[in-house]
């Protein structure tokens, strides 16, 4: 009953007209920022941080939070429409989402990702209200050894992302790890693989890599075909998901939400692993896994829900421990401190109005986002009716602008163009980009945590098996690797076993 009173109190705060206005501004900016590839929530929030200083702490933080989860809604739009993921978590959405768009089903794809996001977001908030304090311990249960094993599990997921040959996918993953390690070593500060190029000291940016490998390479592939491209705009049947779509998506949305919420609690990389893992899970559970990669709606519904639930879960370590799990949350922490508040174990008890007000405002914000996003689907689908010979130069221009704006760096534009060309030849030779991107994100974290855990265990590799959470992650990874081997002992799949030594 205590919780109910608190929730009521929270809605009292959130429904104040000024807070409603801030909430709307926040989710509106968030949607815009999410749709524009490159300009992520981070740059928008740091630019707007000073603006929030004028109001009360509640309204400022409500707006900042709105930008964050608002951008999660918009993030899938460009992935589905033109195969340009704005962030790592949307890479998975590209795989089946863009295929759906090509088949004239952009509407249902966008629709299911909006509804899935809404359901996941709402669930994450209810969970946040009920169990936030209890789950705080989950965030700190993960030490270097646990993270390493989680990253291994994340990387194993890539074997489900691929439709072609397994050695090729694994080779791509290794290249992803190596590309991710370029730059100064975060433990010893030694430059690695920088070839004396100063621009590489900071590593290669994720945004130019994904935009090149997906966006630009896709355009290059499409220009080969004179006739086929019309398929994109030929038959757009309906705008919203049908009953069958809903039936197919219900399970993925539910599972994705749970997966995303729990992985979102973990500081660092949770959302990315969650969206990739959800895709793998759905493909594994599906009776027709061969449809994945060719426009399966489950492959959009699951990851998109996971992505948004993770955004909710990410609030738990921040609100309860004062530990921000990602850069966006850290900016929110900054907003708290600038307003004279210190998120930590005492925040909920000392400032109940603030905590519950923010949570309630996020609930309202989610409703606003759904109302805001659904009418936009029609508009986005109209975009695909543009003839491709006009559309593709615009796509190229937008990727260039998006990459430049994400870092203000011309070098990143070169990187994107280079990866676009590499991506084109990769696709021509049957190498897929998704494993590379996943490994690019997880590889450096895996390396860093491996080295830290070996320092901690003084070189004892058993530490990964002796620690229960780590052991569970590794067991899952093993199971995922072995499962495809059991029914058919096909020669090609045997190579997967080699990866266990990694």
């Amino acid at each position, binding site marked *: 009953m205590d919780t109910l009173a608190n929730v009521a109190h929270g809605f009292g705060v959130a429904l104040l007209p000024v807070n409603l206005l801030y909430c709307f501004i926040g989710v509106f900016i968030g949607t815009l920022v999410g749709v524009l590839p490159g300009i992520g929530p981070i740059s928008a929030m740091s630019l707007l941080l000073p603006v929030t200083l004028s109001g009360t702490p509640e309204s400022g933080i409500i707006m900042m939070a709105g930008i964050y989860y608002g951008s999660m809604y918009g993030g899938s739009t460009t992935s589905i429409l033109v195969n340009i993921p704005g962030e790592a978590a949307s890479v998975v959405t590209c795989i089946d989402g863009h295929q759906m768009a090509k088949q004239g089903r952009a509407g249902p794809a966008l629709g299911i990702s909006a509804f899935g996001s809404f359901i996941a977001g709402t669930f994450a908030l209810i969970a946040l209200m009920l169990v936030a304090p209890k789950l705080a311990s989950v965030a700190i249960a*993960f030490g270097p050894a646990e993270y390493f094993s989680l990253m291994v599990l994340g990387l194993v997921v890539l074997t489900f992302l691929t439709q072609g040959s397994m050695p090729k996918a694994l080779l791509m993953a290794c290249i992803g790890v190596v590309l991710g390690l370029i730059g100064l070593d975060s433990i010893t500060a030694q*430059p690695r693989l920088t070839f004396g190029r100063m621009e590489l000291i900071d590593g290669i940016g994720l945004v130019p890599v994904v935009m090149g490998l997906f966006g630009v390479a896709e355009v290059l592939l499409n220009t080969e075909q004179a006739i086929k491209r019309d398929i994109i705009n030929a038959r757009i049947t309906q705008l919203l998901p049908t009953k069958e779509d809903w039936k197919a998506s219900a399970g993925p949305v539910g599972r994705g939400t749970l997966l995303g919420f729990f992985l979102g609690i973990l500081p660092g990389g949770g959302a990315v692993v969650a969206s990739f893992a959800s895709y793998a899970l759905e493909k594994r559970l599906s009776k027709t896994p061969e449809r994945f990669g060719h426009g399966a709606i489950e492959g959009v519904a699951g990851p998109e829900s996971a992505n948004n639930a993770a955004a909710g879960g990410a609030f738990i370590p921040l609100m309860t*421990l004062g530990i921000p799990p990602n850069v966006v949350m850290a900016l929110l922490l900054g907003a708290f401190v600038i307003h004279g508040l210190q998120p930590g174990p005492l925040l909920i008890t000392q400032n109940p109005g603030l905590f519950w007000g923010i949570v309630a405002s996020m609930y309202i914000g989610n409703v606003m986002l759904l109302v805001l996003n659904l009418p936009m689907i029609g508009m986005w689908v109209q975009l695909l009716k543009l003839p491709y010979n006009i559309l593709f130069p615009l796509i190229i221009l937008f990727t260039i602008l998006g990459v430049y704006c994400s870092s203000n760096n011309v070098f990143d534009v070169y990187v994107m163009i280079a990866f676009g060309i590499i991506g084109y030849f990769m696709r021509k030779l049957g190498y897929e980009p998704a494993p590379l991107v996943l490994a690019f994100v997880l590889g450096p974290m895996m390396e860093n945590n491996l080295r830290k855990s070996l320092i901690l265990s003084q070189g004892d590799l058993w530490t990964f098996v002796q620690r229960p959470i780590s052991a569970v992650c590794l067991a899952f990874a093993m199971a995922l690797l072995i499962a495809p081997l059991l029914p058919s002992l096909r020669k090609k799949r045997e190579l997967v076993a080699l990866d266990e030594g990694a």
Partner: protein
Amino acid sequence: MPRYGLKTIAFAAMHAVMGALLSTAASAQDYPTKPITLIVPWPAGGSTDISMRAIADSASKVLGQPIVIDNKAGGGGTVGPATMAAAAKPDGYTISQIPITVFRLPLMQEVSWDPAKDFTYIIHLTGYTFGVTTSAESQFKSWKDVVEFAKANPGKVTYATPGAGTSLHIGMEQIAGMSGIKLTQVPFKGGAETNAAVLGQHTMLQADSTGWRPLVDAGKLRLLMVWTGSRSPNYPDAPTLKELGYPMVYDSPFGIAGPKGMDPKIVAKLHDAFKKAVEDPAVVATLAKYDMVPNYKNTEDYKKFVVEVTESERKVIETLGLAKK
């Protein structure tokens, strides 16, 4: 499309190009005409990040342009300044916080920058309060317990730092050397990570600046010592290094700098803006939340200070046997 449309469009484009030509004459006089990027070489949300955000916010009001914080963490706070020294133009639109590791790391290994040559030092701002904490559930009730345990189990005591070669790493190694014990350092990427590490008891100790404050206040972490000259008013029970018998003070003072070769007029503008910022009561209040005290030095004094620090660091590094071969 009708024909006159083309003409109108061509006219509009001409107009845009002309306007662009007129608006480019940017110089030191007009500085700043666009947002300034301040590199904070620590993860967002740590004590440095938040205090720099407060300072930058106040300074941006003086400059009349927003200051965008760019968190480039890693390498014990050297990745950011090193990137800036290598890649940024000395136009005053990219500046960086300069942690003490920028002077220390070149003494320990091959690096891509030279602290004496590659930066234009602007202003010295403040320093940290460092402390060593342990989980509230830990067997260590005081620093003495740690020393005793470490004597019995050499190398078994692990401590999390925000990076190799940080003051926390060097300080802990000095303490260990003086007590005749062996400790194992685990380098993380900043306050948020070390908090989680010690709270989850992945490492036994945490050596970090005051990012641990909310957790100590909530009784989840136990503060074993502080590294300031005198006891912190917020934590009167925590002994200083001197009281524990280690004659040292560590506060890692820091300032800001730009790439080498900046226009002195721009340096002066930035100096004045940031000087006003550290005097701003709101900033002083934010700094106090992390037990930071403004430690202002002007551009000239900062340059001298860099030389002094480099020398004193050299001695410490050599005594500890960490100097590069």
